[in-house]
Every structure is written in C-alpha cells, then in structure tokens.
C-alpha cells in the first residue's frame, strides 16, 4: 500500500502526519519516502542513519559533430526547444532539457549519445525505529524537482515494502503530481483557514484528475472557520482525523519531536488511521 501525504498549502502538517503514521506502524516492511526534495525535513523526526547514496539527474544529449549532418530533426522533435540547428552548428541548451530522450531516438545518424546531468542525490538508511527511510535532495539552483522524485521512487529499497508513506512537497504542480503518481491513497492535510481551503481545493483537483481515493486530516482544528468541513462534505471527501490546535504540540514539533511522542494517545490514533486507509484502498471506492 502506497500512501501519499499532500496538502497544497505549506506548513499545514504534512511531515507531522506522515512521520507519525510511519512511527505508529514501525515495522521493518514500512518505508518512508521524503519527496519534498527542495526542503526535505522528515529526517528530523525519524532520525535515520544514512548508509546508501546515489547521484541522480537526467540524461542530456551530447552531439558527435563528426556524425551530425545538421538535418535539424533533433531540434524539431524537442518539445522544450533545448536544441537549435544553425547551418553547420548544432547547439544544445542543457538547462532547457527535460531528459526525455526524443532527440537521441529520432537522430537518423545516431550522432547523439546521452550523459547523466546530476541534479541531486538520493539518501537512504533505516530510521531509529527500524523503518526504511529514503529521501531526495535537489541541488541548490536546480530548477526541476521532478527528475529527482522520479528516481527516488524507482530506487530499489533494501527490503520488501508492505507500506510506503510518501511525504509530498507543498503546492499542486508537477512535483506533487509526480509524488502521487502510482500511489493507492492520498491523505490531504489541511488547516481550517481560507488559505488551507484554497490550496486544499487545488490539490484535491489534482487527486481527482489522477483518479485516486483520498481522505482529509484537519490539523490545528478549532482555529479559522467551518469552510473546510463544508467543502469536504460537499465533495464527499472523508475527514479521517482531526488534530486540535494545541500549543503543546507546536512546541514539541519545534523541538523536533514527532507528534506521537508529544501526545502518546496518537500512537493508537495513527494505527487506526492506517487501518482506515487500508480498508478504503481495499474497498476500491473513494
């Protein structure tokens, strides 16, 4: 079972929920994947000992000028305008390349080879409680997060995975879509404020587009208004958990403690949440 924790709005508690869900399960067949490759922070709560590392990126074209006939087909097939063919020169702009490989495949002279352009690194190791932990880390200044997330998802885990929890990046754009792709369930963490609702709507649309079942966790419950509840009712999105607004929780998180350690009653609540998700995945309906 693959569960993605997403939110739209940043700072609603994705990592708080994702890490506590993993801790409540704490079995060697559980895997936590930090897909927020621009600012991963799951390690703060799960304390992994990294023992695996892999440089990742995209394959970008290299043109062998002795074979190139400057026919221009590579420039034509490139959807990102990363290649221009000017007279007897073929220019490649690596910063525009998405690594799709179309130019390499289309070149009639087989003049294009590919080389890895490193964009970031994957790191993995077991957490303090013995779950598999992995994360992607995008290099500073690198504009595209998706290739690193894609490689993170493909990275073979050290053991059999029964439950995978992915901590998604904030927002509702390509990195979030890539984090959700291939998942069985999306857990949407929001807060009952106009900001929380605005972004929840956006990310709920992405989930609908991908055809995935979803449920909502309302964090900082008690602040704001009732609009998130009304929206969830209207859209048939089940609210699976409410975490009240509590200064004690905020202080604990600020010290790097997982929610289940700040309020031990959450051990049970997160185990129940996991069962609820599993039954919804098995049931097949949203």
């Amino acid at each position, binding site marked *: 079972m693959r569960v993605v924790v997403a939110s739209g709005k940043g700072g609603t508690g994705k990592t708080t929920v994702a890490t506590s869900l993993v801790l409540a399960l704490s079995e060697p067949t559980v895997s936590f994947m930090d897909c927020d490759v621009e600012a991963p922070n799951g390690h703060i709560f799960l304390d992994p000992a990294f023992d695996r590392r892999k440089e990742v990126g995209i394959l970008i074209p290299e043109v062998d000028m002795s074979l190139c006939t400057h026919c221009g087909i590579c420039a034509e097939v490139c959807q990102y305008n990363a290649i221009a063919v000017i007279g007897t020169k073929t220019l490649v702009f690596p910063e525009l390349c998405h690594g799709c490989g179309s130019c390499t495949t289309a070149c009639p002279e087989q003049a294009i080879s590919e080389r890895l352009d490193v964009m970031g690194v994957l790191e993995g190791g077991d957490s303090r409680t013995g779950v598999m932990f992995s994360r992607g880390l995008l290099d500073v200044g*690198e504009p595209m997060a998706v290739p690193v997330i894609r490689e993170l998802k493909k990275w073979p885990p050290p053991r059999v995975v029964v439950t995978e929890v992915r901590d998604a990046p904030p927002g509702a754009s390509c990195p979030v879509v890539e984090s959700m792709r291939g998942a069985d369930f999306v857990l949407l963490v929001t807060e009952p404020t106009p900001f929380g609702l605005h972004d929840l709507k956006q990310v709920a649309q992405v989930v609908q587009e991908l055809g995935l079942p979803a449920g909502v966790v309302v964090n900082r419950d008690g602040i704001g208004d009732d609009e998130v509840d009304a929206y969830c009712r209207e859209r048939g999105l089940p609210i699976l958990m409410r975490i009240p607004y509590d200064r004690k929780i905020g202080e604990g998180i600020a010290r790097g403690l997982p929610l289940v350690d700040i309020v031990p009653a959450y051990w049970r609540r997160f185990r129940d949440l996991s069962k609820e998700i599993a039954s919804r995945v098995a049931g097949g309906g949203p």
Partner: protein
Amino acid sequence: MLEERKMKVAVSLSGRSMDGPFDARFGRAAFFGLTDMDTGEQEVLENPAVGASSGAGVQAAQSVVDRGVQVVVSGAFGPKAHAVLASAGVVMYVAPSDRPLTGTEVLKLYREQGLERVTAPTHAGHHDHPARAAERGRR
C-alpha cells in the same frame, strides 16, 4: 554564397503588420516583420515560440534564421537567443522601448543607423541559476 548578398531584416512585432506596434520582447513577440532590404519586399512571420513553455528565445531565433534573416531588431536578447543568433552570424540591434513605435518606424531607425548594436546578451536567462550555469559550463 549568393544568398549572403540578400539582406533580410526581422523586426519583432505584437501585431500582424509592420504598421502595428513594435514588440520589445524577442522570444515572446507574436510576429516578426521581415523586410528584404534589396527588393523592399515584406512578409510577416508568425513566431512559433510565442506560447512555448520553455526555450522561446531558442525557437524564435531558429525560426528567423531558417527564414534567412541576417539582421534582427528587438528590444532585448537573452543569452540563449543571443547564442543561436550569433552562431548564425545574425547581427542584433535594440530599438528603444521607452516610447511606442511601429514596426515601420523601427525599420526607418535601422536604415538611418539610429539603433544600438548588441554584441552580448542584454539580460540573464529565465531558466538558469547563475551558479548552476557556471557549473554546467565547467562540465
């Protein structure tokens, strides 16, 4: 080569006519007004890059070069558009963008040698982080 003697000038435009407004952007200009300076013949080229998700400068430059243009007048040239145009030997000029001008007025300024020639990109690219660009250059 015979073709080199024919002088073709492209002016970036926001409308389909040389009498319409000049567009100070190169990659995202909707049209290019092409003028053959020997025959006076004019045509308007649609810029295929106007809605490109990325690399508009590269694609726009490729399309004017493919039309045999030797001179481009716009308001600005980014690093990638500049690289493509320069490698084709295209000469670049910038027209003033502080007042509204038509394509025809810009062409007149070019004829009267009242435009500034550009020999380096006029601004940084829209895609790359400076540190990252330097790093890629090293590899």
